[in-house]
């Protein structure tokens, strides 16, 4: 009996906390898009309805449990056999109540939410493409001020923090090197795809979540109404790095967005101009690229996690020739593998620029316990040529 009461009290507390709209720690985080706001309203309303049903039914049960007891000498009433007509009438009552709740009280707002959620084009002013891959998000702006900007967004939390060797930062696991930047107040249409397995791009405060399917395009939209930094995660099991695929969105004013876009475009241009670089420069930059992109699987030391993720240290590919006697890069060479991938190893062609690819390959061939005898240095120009 005590336990029953506890349950009842718990249910009421639950119910109260849900209706306390000011406090979101027990509920969805504060919504910042029309979609999320609508979702929160729908959720609160439905939770309220279900909580009321729960409490009413529980109360009836508890009353019955307390009064209709064998130990109190309560004699069972003979409500059997009821006439079929009575039985049908009484069982149709809960049926009718639920019919009303499901398809009118809950069903109509649910309909409007669905229509709103799926309307990705009406009044949208900007289109971006999001690609999920193991285990990072890639963003590309397809039109507007930021057209042509394209970058990869990686987890920025350190390994030391994850293994409890360093103190964890405030945004542990929810921080990235390159956040997605969006202008406040604009409806942004999002095209979503993936390069390897299913992923799901999710920011709780936006209310939108969509699966990224390799080989297909899916759509959704966001319209952030309040400047700020919003954080979310991949929520479709996508392999061992699934927990390490955060989404960070920086929502800024339109002016700031335009400034950011200009700066980013200039940077990107500069990065795409291929310059001759020294081995040391390449190795230094390559180390950064490696630790960001490659270390998840091949480990910081290059030891890999065989058999799924081969070691780079001493690997035939990472120490063998890249170019054949005809000057063209060979199949299954180091450059081929990085550009085009194979099996679980992703293709980096679209994700990294010429300089980054040249740098990371030069790094892998000269560090991680390797000292390649042939083709020890790869120049960005050679990567550029290989792409053609």
């Amino acid at each position: 009996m005590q336990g029953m009461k506890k349950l009842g009290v718990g249910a009421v507390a639950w119910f109260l906390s849900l209706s306390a709209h000011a406090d979101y720690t027990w509920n969805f985080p504060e919504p910042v898009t029309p979609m999320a706001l609508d979702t929160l309203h729908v959720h609160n309303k439905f939770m309220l309805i279900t909580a009321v049903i729960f409490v009413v039914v529980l109360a009836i049960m508890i009353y019955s449990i307390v009064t209709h007891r064998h130990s109190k000498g309560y004699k069972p009433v003979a409500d059997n056999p009821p006439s079929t007509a009575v039985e049908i009438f009484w069982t149709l009552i809960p049926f009718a109540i639920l019919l009303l709740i499901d398809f009118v009280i809950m069903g109509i707002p649910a309909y409007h939410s669905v229509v709103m959620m799926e309307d990705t084009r009406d009044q949208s002013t900007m289109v971006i493409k999001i690609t999920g891959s193991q285990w990072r998000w890639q963003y590309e702006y397809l039109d507007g001020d930021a057209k042509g900007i394209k970058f990869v967004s990686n987890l920025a939390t350190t390994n030391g923090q994850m293994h409890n060797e360093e103190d964890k930062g405030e945004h542990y696991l929810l921080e990235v090197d390159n956040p997605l930047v969006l202008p406040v107040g604009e409806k942004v249409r999002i095209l979503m795809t993936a390069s390897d397995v299913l992923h799901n791009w999710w920011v709780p405060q936006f209310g939108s979540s969509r699966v990224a399917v390799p080989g297909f395009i899916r759509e959704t939209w966001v319209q952030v109404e309040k400047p700020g930094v919003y954080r979310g995660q991949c929520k479709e099991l996508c392999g061992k790095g699934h927990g390490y695929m955060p989404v960070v969105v920086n929502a800024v004013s339109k002016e700031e967005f335009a400034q950011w876009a200009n700066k980013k475009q200039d940077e990107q241009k500069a990065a795409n101009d291929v310059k001759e670089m020294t081995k040391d420069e390449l190795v230094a930059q390559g180390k950064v690229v490696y630790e960001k992109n490659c270390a998840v699987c091949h480990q910081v030391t290059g030891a890999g996690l065989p058999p799924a993720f081969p070691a780079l240290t001493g690997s035939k590919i990472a120490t063998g020739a890249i170019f054949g006697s005809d000057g063209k890069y060979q199949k299954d060479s180091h450059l081929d593998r990085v550009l085009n991938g194979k099996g679980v190893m992703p293709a980096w062609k679209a994700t990294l620029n010429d300089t980054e690819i040249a740098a990371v390959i030069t790094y892998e061939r000269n560090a991680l316990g390797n000292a390649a005898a042939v083709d020890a240095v790869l120049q960005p120009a050679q990567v550029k040529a290989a792409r053609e």
Partner: protein
Amino acid sequence: MSTTSVAHHDEHQDHPTGIMRWLTTTNHKDIGTMYLTFSLIMFLVGGSMILGIRAELFKPGLQLMNPEFFNQLIGVHALIMIFAALMPAATGFANWMLPLQIGAPDMALPRLNNWGFWILPPSAILLTLPFTLALFGVGDGALATGWTFYPPLSVQGGIGVDFAIFAVHLLGISSVLGSINIIVTIYNMRAPGMTLMKMPMFAWGWLITAFLLIATIPVLAGAVTMLLTDRHFGTHFFDAAGGGDPIMFQHLFWFFGHPEVYILLLPVWGFIPQILQTFSRKPMYGYKAQVYSLWAIGALAVVVWAHHFFTAGMPVPALLYFMYSTMAISLPLAVLFYCWIRTMWKGSMSFETPMLFTVGWIILFGVGGLTGLVLADVAADAQYHNSYFVVAHFHYTLFAGGIMGIMAGVYYWLPKMTGHMYNEKLGKLHFWLTAISFNVTFIPQFFVGLAGMPRRIPDYALQFAEFNMISSIGAFALGLSQLLFVYIIISCVKGGKKASDRVWEGAQGLEWTLPSPPPYHSFTEQPVVK
């Protein structure tokens, strides 16, 4: 329903003894016992796996295992709990009780019955073997895709996926064999006078389950076979590059997977009203309404599958259809709840352990059902989907609605099966420990889910820390409480107060007309139902 002329003889003890009795047995009670024992063992195995997970999630950071192993534990935990713990438990009861309840001497196809059971242990071994193989450097462990096998992740996976596919094939064959046997038994072996509409509710629950199994298991078998050929024989069913579609797998999987949820629960919905009427000392309310509701739920179960992947992208009409059809399931379910509570209403209730579990079951399963209703809403589901909210929801249906229902059944029939009363005090203690620690485990998961914690992640942001810690403490308490359950069962099998034939004052049904334990060949003379 009343019974006349029941006779039994105990002199036909011409069966093998010792280990051969169990290996070769075709006796429904022996096979039922084996199913139930197997189920209990696998429940503990699947439970220990999740305690590893909950230990890892006790605080932020990686402490015990790498993410790959974490993913393996999650997937295997689910497959074991569903296929090797919950389903065999229901089948065990079917074997034990259906013949007794419908007045049959045994199941209709006893040899098939033996096969149905003996396929199970090898498949359980197949599921867990990759863990052991990995220790010896063979392969990279069990399947790490979650129990849903979604490609392309499962196409990438190692030998664990192949082992799991074969295990699922075997488990599926076992279920289909069991189902055929149950359907044939129910249709052909009922005592004279027992029309379908006089049949015990448990038989109805199982009959519908059996049809669902036969309808959906072959689809699952097909889907995982297609996966196998994608993995090894160059087909591209689920690969866009070859003209396939990964989402097609989800359609096939959930065409099985959603009815599966009802497959797990329908047998329980069958015997819960029987327990209720026993301890309310009053016939169950709305027998016919319940039968029709069970059929309605069975029918709806096969037409709502896509609500498991609303966020995968679907045309608006499809979203609306799957939303409204899913909500429709709450209608027959409401009728069932109404009948259960109406059965208690103005009864003369007493609260022995089976009744405690049953009442607790109604409340907790109610939470599962109501949170399921809100999940049907497409817009809100974008938030809930793949978050811990869903994990909490389906544990309210599968653990509370499934396992705790089974526990009610165990306490209800244990005296009948063993001939001894279990320890009532310990039984009640087991109920309270289970119910409380269950809530401590899963209520916090609703809140971390709402706040935005995705499921299937080995580590989480700091804001989720407190709730996860509470949840882990609850899980360990829940796990430990089950050792008490094992102890109660073992001591009841070994001895205890002699159980009478009827066992419970208000018990109704043919099984209570036999001695406890029933003789080896249950009814040697057919009972007649008037």
